[in-house]
């Protein structure tokens, strides 16, 4: 018999704020975290727009040795996880004595790899890279750093699934717990923000060039969008079995009731309506809910014409024209590897505070977005059950459904 899976802690480090309180306020206010980054322009980017987060100061929390193997993904993930653990009332002493797992989404470590190899080019000696680089350079950097810092004893691996990494990490944690293999798993997603990480993506010409209006540039579902905007940070979602959460007296923020997934098996970057619909239906079937029971959909929509249109069609096919939909990427930009996890955090904050965050900059629909109920201004509303979509390059799709516990 499968176990119930609940969320007992969340943490966020994003361009909307570096803690839950700041981010909840930004979501309600419809605030954009997008800026113009001159460094990118000077480097040769077509678009200098990006979400931006401050570099966290980890010195008060971690020893030198613990910090040495961390670059942006692990640094951001540590900050988000610290907040989530506090909310879940978990500390290292408890984690060391119990079996807690970690499955974190991450799909690049570009800047640290470039820095390490630049050092070899300069010095002609690999020893002079230093001891931390290898642990920064590997894609499992978040897992290897957090699992050792937090003294974790359970399942431990990273999940790479392009822009659905964070969502699949939560789905995988859900499966581990529902199958009775783990009592508790730290899930999440991390995304580095630096010019090395996103140059090849910029090179595809998919980023918005509305550089004169950074906060108006990310416009998912809007007729006049001209591309996505990269962003990053980290988000953490702590999953536990219902029994374990009750036994500990932990706060229960929501129950994860459905995880749907699929692969398009077609083009490497173009989305596919059938693949999205299959993930949506799978999540619904598992959750045992009807389309009418979904109070809100947090869309993947990134502000690209092809992606937004296909998702609008998939949503319309399964849910019709009534369910409220918004893409928080209108405020955050596309948080890529982190997005599937951060958007669960954003939507839980909406659920806790009874509102739907707006899809800002949605001014004029196109043929497909006109068919669904896109919320362009903050809407006071109770959310008892929500759905979050994430889609990634390679045609990987993930859908999560969460309800109030």
């Amino acid at each position, binding site marked *: 018999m499968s176990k119930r899976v609940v969320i007992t802690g969340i943490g966020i480090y994003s361009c909307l704020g570096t803690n839950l309180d700041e981010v909840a306020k930004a979501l309600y206010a419809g605030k954009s975290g997008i800026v113009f980054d001159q460094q990118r322009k000077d480097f040769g980017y077509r678009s200098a727009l990006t979400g931006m987060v401050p570099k966290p100061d980890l010195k008060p929390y971690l*020893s*030198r040795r613990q910090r*040495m193997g961390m670059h942006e993904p692990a640094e951001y993930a540590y900050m988000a996880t610290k907040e989530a653990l506090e909310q879940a009332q978990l500390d290292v002493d408890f984690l060391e004595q119990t079996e807690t797992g970690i499955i974190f989404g991450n799909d690049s470590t570009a800047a640290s790899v470039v820095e390490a190899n630049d050092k070899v080019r300069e*010095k002609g000696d690999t020893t*002079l890279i*230093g*001891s931390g680089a290898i642990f920064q350079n590997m894609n499992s950097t978040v897992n290897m750093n957090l699992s050792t810092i937090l003294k974790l004893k359970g399942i431990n691996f990273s999940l790479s699934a392009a822009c659905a990494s964070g969502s699949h990490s939560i789905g995988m944690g859900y499966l581990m717990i529902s199958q009775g293999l783990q009592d508790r798993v730290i899930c999440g997603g991390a995304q580095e923000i630096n010019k090395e990480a996103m140059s090849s993506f910029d090179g595809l010409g998919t980023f918005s060039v509305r550089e004169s209006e950074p906060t108006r540039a990310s416009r998912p579902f809007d007729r006049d969008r001209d591309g996505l905007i990269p962003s990053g940070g980290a988000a953490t979602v702590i999953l536990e079995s219902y029994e374990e959460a009750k036994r500990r007296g932990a706060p229960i923020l929501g129950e994860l009731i459905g995880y749907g997934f699929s692969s398009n098996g077609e083009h490497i970057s173009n989305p596919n309506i059938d693949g999205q619909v299959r993930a949506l239906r799978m999540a619904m079937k598992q959750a045992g809910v009807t389309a009418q029971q979904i109070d809100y959909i947090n869309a993947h929509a990134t502000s690209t014409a092809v992606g937004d249109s296909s998702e609008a069609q998939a949503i319309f096919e399964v849910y019709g024209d009534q369910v409220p939909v918004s893409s928080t990427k209108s405020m955050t930009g596309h948080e890529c590897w982190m997005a599937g996890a951060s958007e669960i955090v954003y939507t839980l904050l909406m659920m806790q505070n009874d509102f739907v965050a707006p899809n800002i900059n949605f001014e004029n629909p196109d043929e497909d977005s006109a068919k669904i109920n896109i919320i362009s201004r903050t809407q006071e509303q109770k959310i008892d059950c929500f759905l979050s979509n994430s889609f990634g390059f390679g045609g990987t799709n993930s859908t999560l459904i969460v309800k109030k516990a």
Partner: protein
Amino acid sequence: MYLNDEKVAFDEVIEGIRGFLSEEFEVDPAVILAENNLKDSLDLDSLDYVDLVVLIEENLNIKVTGEDFKDIVTFGDFFDLVKKKLGR
């Protein structure tokens, strides 16, 4: 100016070494005394010796290898190694 400049007195070189070691390994400079144990005082593990090699290259512009640390126990031994590498 590099600490390996021959115009810099070796006492000043030692002060410079105390400075960069205490800053990098986040220890009180007062523990960096010739008679104290280098590994224990700086709380070094095997990975930290790689960073020690990097620090020496960056601050003194001299190359040392892991092999050079084989017989080093105290800071005094370490200062002697630097002295030898600097040709003093």
